[in-house]
C-alpha cells in the first residue's frame, strides 16, 4: 500500500485497489469562512453567483459549511476501469464520467461531519499520462444553488479515481433536505451527479 501524503493530519487511507492518496488536506480557520468567498487549500471556496444577494439569510447560516478534509486517490488503473465499465481507449477525445456520488451519513446534525464522495473515470487516448480535471461542488436546496463549496483543479492519471470531501455541518444550518451536486470537467467533457443528505432538527 502506498503511503498517503498528509498535509495537516493523518487519516487512514482506505482506497481499495491502488491505495494511493494523491493529496489529503485539512482546512484551517473554518469559522472565519464567510459568504464572500475565501480561498482555502489548493482550491477555492466561493459564494455561488447564482445564489445572489437574495440568499443572504441562508448564506449566513451556511457560512460555516466549509471543507474539512479533501482526499483523492486513484482507485482503478486504465485496464481495470475499461474492464469494469466496458469501454476502450478513445481515439482523439478526453472524457470524464462520474460513476458514483455519495453523501454519508444520509442524515446529519449540527457539528456532524458529512462525507461527500465521488468516483469517476478519466478516459483519454492511449499514451496520455494525465489529464487536467476541474472538480466542483455546489450545495442546492429545492433546486436552487445556495453555495459553491469547492472548485478544485486536479491532475488525474487515466482510469478510475475517487475524491472525498468532509464538511462540518454548521450550527445554524436550517433543517431539511439538501443536494450536493458534484461536477467534473476536462476540456468540453463534463459530468454532474447529485448526492442527497438531510439536516435533522
Amino acid at each position, binding site marked *: 500500500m502506498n503511503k498517503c501524503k498528509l498535509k495537516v493530519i493523518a487519516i487512514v487511507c482506505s482506497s481499495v485497489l491502488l491505495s494511493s492518496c494523491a493529496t489529503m488536506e485539512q482546512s484551517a480557520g473554518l469559522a472565519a469562512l464567510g459568504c464572500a468567498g475565501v480561498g482555502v487549500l489548493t482550491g477555492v471556496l466561493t459564494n455561488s453567483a447564482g445564489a445572489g444577494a437574495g440568499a443572504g439569510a441562508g448564506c449566513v447560516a451556511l457560512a460555516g459549511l466549509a471543507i474539512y478534509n479533501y482526499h483523492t486517490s486513484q482507485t482503478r488503473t486504465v485496464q481495470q476501469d475499461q474492464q469494469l465499465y466496458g469501454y476502450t481507449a478513445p481515439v482523439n477525445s478526453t472524457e470524464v464520467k462520474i460513476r458514483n456520488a455519495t453523501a454519508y451519513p444520509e442524515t446529519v446534525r449540527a457539528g456532524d461531519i458529512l462525507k461527500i464522495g465521488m468516483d469517476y473515470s478519466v478516459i483519454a487516448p492511449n499514451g496520455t499520462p494525465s489529464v487536467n480535471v476541474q472538480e466542483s461542488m455546489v450545495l442546492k436546496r429545492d433546486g436552487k444553488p445556495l453555495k459553491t463549496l469547492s472548485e478544485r483543479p486536479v491532475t488525474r492519471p487515466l482510469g478510475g479515481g475517487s475524491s472525498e470531501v468532509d464538511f462540518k455541518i454548521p450550527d445554524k444550518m436550517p433543517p431539511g433536505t439538501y443536494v450536493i451536486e458534484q461536477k467534473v470537467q476536462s476540456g468540453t467533457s*463534463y459530468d454532474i451527479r447529485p448526492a442527497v443528505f438531510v439536516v435533522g432538527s
Partner: protein
Amino acid sequence: MRKRQGVGALMPLLFVGMSVAVAGMPVAPCDHKQAAIEISLQRIVNEWPMRGSGESVSQYVQKLGIRLAFSSLYGRNIPWQFWVVRNLAPNAFSIGGGYVFITDGAVNFVRNESELAAILAHELGHELAGHFCVAPDLIDFGGLFDIFSAPKTQQHQVGVGSLTQVIDPVKEQQADQIAVTILQASGYDSHAMLEVARRLPKGDGVHPVDFQRLRALESLLAKIPPIKAQDSEDFLTIKRTLAAEQATW
C-alpha cells in the same frame, strides 16, 4: 427486447409525397445490424457522460425528436431514442437503430427551435435513409454520422471517442434533403439548416465547412420560402435551464 427495423429499402418512396405515404406499411428489416448497433450504444453510454432520460433537457429533446420523426409515417416504425451528451462542443450524430445523440453544446449553439430541429432532422435523415443498414462495414466499426462534418469529397473516417465516424459527402447531402422535408412537414423553418451550417465553428481542422454541401443546400432551399416558426415555450424553458446551469458552475 424490442424489435428494431430499418427503412433503407423504402428510401425511394420515402419522400415522394410524404403526405400520401401508406400507414402501417412494414419497413425493411435491418436486424442483421442490430447487434452491432447495440454494442455501439453500450460503448457510448459506458464511455461518455450522458444526461439522464428523466432530465428536462433530455425529455424535451426526446419530445422534439419524436415530433420530427412522426412527420413521416415511416418514422413511426422506428423506436427512437434521443440522448443528450454532456459535452460543451456542438455536435450530433446517430448510430442506427433509432439512436440519436446530441450534445449540450449543440443545444446551446442554436438560436431558435428550428435550428435545433434542423440538427435532429439531419440525424433522422441518416436513420430514415437506412444509411446504417446498407453499409455493413460501417456499423461493424461503430460508424457514426455527424451533421457537422463532411470535409472531403471522398468517404473517410475520423475518430469520435473510441468509435469511428464515417463521413460520406453523398450520404450527408441525402440526410440534408430528408431533413428539409422533415422540417417542412413538421412546421419548422427548413432554412435553419443553412443557418446552422454557416454558423458552425470554422477552421478547427476537424469540422471544416463543406462548401459543396452548402451549395447543395442553398440550391435545395432556393425553391422553398422561409417561414417564421415560433419557438415553443418548452424550447425557451430548456434554453433558460441550460443558461442557469452554466451560471451555477
